[in-house]
């Protein structure tokens, strides 16, 4: 009887999760399928391409500088993510381990900047980088994106819940703050750091307005601008649009798959807390 009940209960989550998974996967599937459809079959409602073709990929690559755009996006996303992670770890560690004058005010101010949309500060940032002569330069894309208030807040929460006994034990063994941070705390925060890395990476990878304002040519811009180039006044080119979107998704999917376990761990632990 117990076995029957357990089995019955086991089906309930699956009954909920399977339809949810299908709903989540369907748009991605439809994107890949549409990217493989020939032009005169682009509006077909069949869930697979009738006569699969790579023409849309060829056309997209011939029409715009796909590889330079993907390279620029990757450099921008990776460096921005690493910079934000580094600054967030150091800032969070400072807020968690030290009491200093106006620390709470400073923390509140950082938290408040999270509420200011980037569009509001975009023009002052733009004027600044243009005066520095950095327009149409990858460095200018990166500069205002080296610190993330969201990342600091998230890591402060994670570090606050880190067992102080472990830190004190390390300090008793003679480890300084720097050593405690990098040898004790950070290795044990792999799950939240992985989740944060993915969120930051995706956010930068999908960035549109800042590169739109800053870049001047195809070879210096990012893939999101390239995707937009297939949405035109004269009608959208769905086949190439889906092809380029599929290519743009692959790195994000790969990173998610690589860090999947840490992300799930992080969310599970966050839920338990």
């Amino acid at each position, binding site marked *: 009887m117990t076995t029957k009940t357990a089995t019955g209960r086991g089906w309930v989550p699956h009954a909920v999760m399977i339809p949810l998974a299908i709903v989540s996967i369907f748009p991605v599937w439809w994107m890949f399928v549409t990217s493989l459809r020939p*032009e*005169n079959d682009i509006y077909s409602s069949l869930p697979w391409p009738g006569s699969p073709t790579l023409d849309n990929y060829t056309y997209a690559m011939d029409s715009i500088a796909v590889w330079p755009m993907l390279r620029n996006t990757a450099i921008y996303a990776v460096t921005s993510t690493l910079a934000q992670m580094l600054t967030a770890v150091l800032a969070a560690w400072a807020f968690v381990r030290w009491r200093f004058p106006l620390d709470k005010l400073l923390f509140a101010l950082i938290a408040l900047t999270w509420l200011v949309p980037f569009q509001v500060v975009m023009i002052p940032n733009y004027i600044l980088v243009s005066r520095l002569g950095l327009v149409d330069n990858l460095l200018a894309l990166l500069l205002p994106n080296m610190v993330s208030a969201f990342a600091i807040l998230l890591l402060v929460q994670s570090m606050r819940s880190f067992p102080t006994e472990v830190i004190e034990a390390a300090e008793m063994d003679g480890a300084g703050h720097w050593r405690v941070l990098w040898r004790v705390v950070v290795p044990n925060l792999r799950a939240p750091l992985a989740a944060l890395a993915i969120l930051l990476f995706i956010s930068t990878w999908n960035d549109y307005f800042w590169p739109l304002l800053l870049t001047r040519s195809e070879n210096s811009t990012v893939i999101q601008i*390239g995707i937009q*180039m297939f949405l*035109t006044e*004269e009608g959208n080119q769905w086949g190439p649009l889906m092809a380029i979107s599929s290519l743009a998704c692959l790195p994000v999917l790969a990173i998610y798959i690589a860090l999947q376990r840490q992300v799930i761990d992080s969310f599970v632990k966050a839920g338990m807390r």
Partner: protein
Amino acid sequence: MKTVRHLLLGAIAAALPFPAFAQMAPAIEEPVTIRFYNYNLASAGLGREGTLEMLGTFAEANPLINVEGVPVPSSEVMSRVQADVIAGQGPDIAQIIFADLGYLVENFGVPALDDIAPAEELDEHLSGMFPRGIELARVDGDLYGLAYVFSTPVLFYNADLFIEAGLDPDQPPRTWEDVSAAAIAIHEATGNPGLLTGIFGPSAYDWLYQGFLRSNGGRVMSEDRGTMMFAEPEAVEALATLRAIAQAGAMPLVPSSSAIEAMSSGNAGMYLQTSAVQGALLRGAEGNFDLRAAPMPTFGDQQATPTNSGSALVIMTQDPVRQRAAWELMQHLTSDYGYTVITSQIGYVPLRQNAVTSEEYLAPFLRANPVVQPNIDQLDSLVPWVPLPGPSYRQILTVMMNASEQAVFGADDNIETILADAQSRAQSLVPR
């Protein structure tokens, strides 16, 4: 972005010197680089390729002028221009959508072509253009640019659905009464929408709406752009025609991109939209259904007055040498050669009579592609898409188009009240 734009207006006004305009330099004697904002360059495909070709031939003919073509999506041109003007990196010449032209002229100290271009050169260049085309870039009497890539509204129709509904595809609807009857017949016979239009939806602007109202003797505002008039009886009557079709279930409210898709996939009977979408529709129709086109419908015996979609080239620089370089580029892009590329490769309307008739330019192409001809024929009755007034022109646009949408698709039958209320709100946004 809209909010940012308005916040920046004061800064722009302070940053611009608004000088008295002197004429441009007589010639280019030293190498000069000009920045050209262009939205065709921001799209993949024919628009970009055609533009690059024209810039290439210009570079060959003008070795002292280097043109830095900056791709900017059409929806972002104004935001980008404003940000760059403040940063001291504004464009020397820009492709500006007609809806934004009034705002640009009123707030950016844009020089009028009449003031900066030598009169004889300007007259000579304009002499070969369709007179109504020249008027498109005139604001309050002054010429601020030259119409560049633009189109007129065309009634696309699916001949297969016409046959299925018992209609004759060789006799396309001529009047709005014909359109209404055909739309309802198609909907009843096939279950598909009988009519879709580019009038409504978030990215529609008001270019087609202006032409639609003017075809029935109405207009959205007075000639001096000081009084909103979109609640006059002619406008009410015109929208009542569309409401009747919508009420019969033959015209659903769909955004522009969905309408193109519905028409391209053969799931709509008729589609009133800019001829610029012709390429996209033909790609969908190929091998699937028979796509045809007819001129913009009339109200009874009145003549249809199509308006234009599209953009103008505007010189923005104050520097006489750069103005000369930009003027040379402007002439090249709107020459017989330029319009040959624009029409045959990008798909817009040629604005030069000689380009249309000359065997050297477009005549062979037009013989091979008769579908372009209704567009050219409509140039004789073309009325300009007039920019809405003042710095709040986008809000006026939203108020007006939301009301027109509500009047056609809303639950309330009282079109007069809906439009009068919106007109009153829009009028309060017009500068006194």
